[in-house]
């Protein structure tokens, strides 16, 4: 319980400002690098899953494909559909990308390496994740296109529904460790591998993984952008950098949930086995990468679910299971804790 009572340092020192600036620049570079690598990786993995080579023309093994795509996207004209809400249309892609920088500030990359020390880091991430849905609404509605609007409506009902089991799963962890500070949760999993929350909270991990796919609009829950039904979903009307920003936001939110999975459930920066030179930050990055690869693998393995199935899984299974998990956790904590 003591960890909650640690007060913030509200004093602004030059060092803290400097640290914040350095962290922001590093995060921006990380997010751009992540998008470039992930687009290539996704296409390559998709190729291998479907027994074809994937991109291989540009550069050796096609590794420069993303660079070519980026240049192409940058050079494209930004089209604004007629009779649309110009202001919201242009605001939406920016709004989808902007809160991401803030959320990456509070993630503990190593035992002491974070951009911003906040004792409510988990809550901060959940709070700003809600703005993603807002950006999708703005984009889908402002496009003045029925496909975009249906895509936006789907995205919203999906993200609102999947947020609840996600929060319930994370709340069980907060119950267990008595903190919403990600660094504290990271440190609480020190020691043996069975201290990791994936072993102490397996049901919460299962719920978390399923809701991750729902929250990031990834297959098998990618109904907001179901190409076969909606020609592209909420970003149908976007071209050039507008589309690129939405695309980047998708990969960034993927990385965010992967970091959360690594820090919350997979032991964070704690090593499962001692390997020289690989410690702390590297373990977080390895676990994050593994979870992201898992997400890509799932996308190319499972077909898209129907919309009623999507909502039924959430309201009839994940929500009761999440409540049960929370209840059992509270009971165990009360019995063990006292």
């Amino acid at each position, binding site marked *: 319980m003591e960890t909650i009572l640690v007060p*913030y340092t509200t004093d602004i020192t030059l060092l803290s400002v400097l640290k914040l600036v350095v962290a922001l620049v590093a995060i921006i570079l990380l997010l751009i690098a992540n998008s470039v690598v992930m687009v290539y990786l996704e296409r390559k993995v998709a190729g291998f899953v479907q027994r074809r080579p994937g991109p291989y023309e540009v550069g050796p093994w096609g590794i420069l494909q993303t660079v070519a795509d980026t240049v192409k996207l940058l050079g494209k004209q930004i089209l604004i559909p007629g009779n649309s809400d110009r202001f919201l249309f242009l605001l939406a892609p920016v709004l989808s990308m902007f809160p991401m920088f803030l959320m990456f500030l509070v993630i503990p990359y190593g035992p002491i390496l974070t951009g911003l020390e906040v004792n409510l880091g988990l809550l*901060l991430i959940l*709070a700003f994740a*809600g703005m993603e849905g*807002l950006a999708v609404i703005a984009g889908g*509605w402002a496009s003045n296109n029925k496909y975009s609007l249906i895509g936006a409506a789907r995205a*919203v*009902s999906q993200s609102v529904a999947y947020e609840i089991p996600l929060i319930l799963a994370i709340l069980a962890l907060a119950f267990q460790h008595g903190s919403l500070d990600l660094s504290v949760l990271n440190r609480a999993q020190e020691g043996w591998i069975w201290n990791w929350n994936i072993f102490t909270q397996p049901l919460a991990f299962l719920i978390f993984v399923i809701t991750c796919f729902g929250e990031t609009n990834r297959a098998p829950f990618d109904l907001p952008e179901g190409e076969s039904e909606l020609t592209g979903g909420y970003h149908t009307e976007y071209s050039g950098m507008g589309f690129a920003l939405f695309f980047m936001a998708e990969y960034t939110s993927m990385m965010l949930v992967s970091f959360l999975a690594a820090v919350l459930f997979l032991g964070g920066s704690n090593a499962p086995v001692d390997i020289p030179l690989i410690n702390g930050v590297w373990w977080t990055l390895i676990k994050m990468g593994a979870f992201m690869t898992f997400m890509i693998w799932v996308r190319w393995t499972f077909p898209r679910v129907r919309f009623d199935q999507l909502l039924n899984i959430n309201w009839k299974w994940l929500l009761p299971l999440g409540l049960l998990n929370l209840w059992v956790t509270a009971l165990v904590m009360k019995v063990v804790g006292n």
Partner: protein
Amino acid sequence: MIDLIASSAALMNASATGVEALSEMMLPQLAHDIMAYVAYGLYVLLILGGGLWAVLARNLVRAMFGLVVTFMGVAAMYLLMASPFMAFMQLLIYIGAISVLIFFAIMLIKNTSSGEEVNFPGPLQALTALISAAAPLVLFGPIIVMNAGKLAQTETPVETPLAELGQGLIEYYVVPFEMISVVLLVAMAGGVLLAWDKRFKK
């Protein structure tokens, strides 16, 4: 070689003391004050501007985004008053859920920009609006005036620990806390009742 190691060690020492000196370089109190006032002004502008945008917008979705701006201003104001928990809860619930719910409500009804909300409201409607706008002032005004001396403070506000906040909610303030959920229950019952009525008329 030894010289090099020695000089680099000296350099590291120097940089360490440099970092220490940097971390001890607090901004003067005046700078803190100015920043607080600038932030306060900015957030007030956000709240009022968002509210005006919401009221004056010709389109319901645009009005909703005005409301979102107001919510953000309020969240920022909580942050300025050193209650980050309230700020994040404001963002999580009002921006993440309530505004999305409003969007859904707008989608379910006919949304044209030539609807009745474009016309200027009649005198009775304006009067009702004025009364409901003044109601909080009448309710909270006396409390604020009575406690003006206690509320006015110039020092930096101190953050309430989360545990204390939770304990307050389930111990001392448990009755108001539960009453709020009764209000929500009544609202939900009202919604069901409205839908029920429609179903039987068909």
